[in-house]
């Protein structure tokens, strides 16, 4: 345990100090996107890896919040952070509705995935076609940047710290939840929900709790992402986005709170590390995905952990 804490401390210091000596805007940009995508992956893993529900609603939570933040700022005249809170509230209400429908009717596994995908698609089509409000397929340019503690968060380095902080907060929250009695309820639901039920665990309530909590974190990630990128588009809510998140979690490893960040980092950086022509790169990318799943079925973290355990035993 002590060595783990020491490791965590060293990694934190390293990441905090990184912009002091890494001056490359490109590297920092990749890291900002990785941290924000990491938030998505970690929060998705709360629903998927720990509670066992393959949600396809994550892109919708992400995208709806991104749009909502902008719209609240514009139409209610509130500041960025208030708008983020309102957007997170909106997403939690949507998640409660979608989650209640799915869990009340006891949709499981693939059925759950498909129904959440259906709701996600409806959200996307609404954003795409509600032209007066969302500017439809043309998207929206976001000029504003958030203010934090009297500083305007503009430029890559401030965003690096903001996104790192947001990711750290996400990890802390998820870690606390997973290693608490609530996390035990999640495990019970994932592994055998009927047994959990007879042991007095309100399966519906904790499924919903995981679903809403995951989506709210995704919502915050969406609000940050859009304002870092500086634009909104309906593509935020696309199926590809949800599938990308699943890929990140599986690459990183779903049995750990931290591991999906590795997947997010890998999948965000990978396209910029392989220098081939477009088609060949796509082929290489797909092959890496396939090979990782076949060779490391428990993800990077799971495989390393298994290897270490083996060594330890030997």
């Amino acid at each position: 345990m002590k060595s783990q804490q020491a490791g965590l401390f060293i990694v934190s210091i390293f990441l905090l100090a990184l912009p002091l000596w890494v001056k490359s805007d490109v590297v920092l940009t990749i890291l900002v996107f990785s941290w924000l995508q990491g938030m998505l992956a970690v929060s998705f893993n709360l629903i998927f890896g720990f509670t066992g529900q393959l949600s396809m609603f994550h892109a919708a939570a992400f995208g709806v919040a991104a749009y909502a933040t902008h719209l609240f700022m514009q139409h209610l005249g509130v500041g960025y952070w208030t708008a983020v809170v309102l957007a997170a509230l909106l997403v939690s209400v949507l998640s409660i509705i979608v989650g209640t429908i799915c869990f009340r009717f006891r949709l499981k596994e693939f059925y759950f995935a498909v129904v959440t995908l259906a709701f996600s698609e409806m959200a996307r089509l609404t954003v795409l076609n509600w032209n007066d409000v969302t500017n439809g397929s043309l998207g929206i340019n976001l000029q504003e940047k958030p203010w934090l503690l009297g500083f305007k968060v503009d430029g890559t380095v401030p965003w690096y710290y903001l996104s790192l902080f947001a990711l750290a907060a996400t990890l802390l929250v998820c870690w606390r939840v997973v290693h608490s009695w609530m996390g035990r309820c999640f495990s019970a639901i994932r592994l055998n929900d009927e047994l959990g039920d007879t042991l007095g665990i309100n399966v519906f309530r904790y499924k919903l709790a995981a679903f809403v909590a995951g989506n709210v974190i995704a919502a915050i990630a969406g609000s940050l992402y859009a304002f870092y990128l500086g634009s909104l588009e309906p593509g935020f809510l696309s199926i590809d986005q949800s599938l990308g998140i699943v890929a990140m979690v599986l690459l990183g490893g779903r049995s750990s709170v931290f591991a999906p960040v590795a997947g997010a980092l890998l999948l965000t950086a990978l396209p910029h590390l392989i220098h081939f022509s477009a088609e060949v790169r796509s082929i290489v990318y797909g092959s890496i995905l396939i090979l990782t799943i076949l060779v490391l079925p428990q993800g990077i973290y799971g495989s390393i952990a298994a290897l270490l355990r083996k060594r330890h035993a030997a």
Partner: protein
Amino acid sequence: MGQLLLGQLLNGAILGTLYGIIALGVTLTFGITGIVNFALGVFMMLGAYAAWYFTDVAGLPYPLAVPCAVAVTALAGLIADQGLFRFTRNNLVNGLLVSIGMIAVLEASALLIWTSTPKELHRVLPGVFVIFGFVLPKMKLLVFGLLLAVIIATYMALTRTWIGRAAYAYAQNPEAAQLMGVRTSRLQTGVVVYSTALAGLGGALYASLYSLEPTLGSLFVLKAVEAAILAGIGSVIGSLFGGIILGVTEGVGSIYLPLAFRDAYGLVFLVAILLFKPAGLFAGRR
């Protein structure tokens, strides 16, 4: 307006059988190997391009090109199964990711070979029928008939032959079937290859109706999965009706409601059905 409705009922049903043939592959693969093979979409694309290649480039007559295309797709399916899907049996999520990886690889390869210029097969069977004032291309009707025949033949084979019953028994209870002497790995490979062949057939027939581009399968397979679930995964005859219901919902939906939401109409229907009949409309039927 009645004529418009009738036309869309008919056209939706025809389009629905195309969804249905892929849905059948989805259903069979899921029943026997426990994964949802999204890569069936790219096998469909492969079948479509193969049919185009054999007719318009190699100069074979279309009726000959279709079986060739199906054979090519089945072969590709066999290779994919032995090289990849064999390792993801009964692992839904890993299977899903391997299919996504395969989609990336095969779509990019298709783009490399055939570019993004749409390919359009020459008219195989020009001409139209007029049914109560609704004009229906002959080829569409032919495709409808062929797909219907294949789906029904598959249904018959699954219910009347030994191998079919073995497959069905396996889907119901793998352990018992194994004890009864069903050779699992062969059965699984056989079903995966048959499913890809069905996708190839769907693609080859698709090629006679629509233009081809490398991404054609991705959207289609989503519809097929919707259809399979709508019907209740595991039901052969259900995948046909699931496809038709989806096709008709979209067709009729887009004449009375905004076209831009077309994809949502099927989804709304799907959600409604799953909520009130969670195992699908044809749950428990073969």
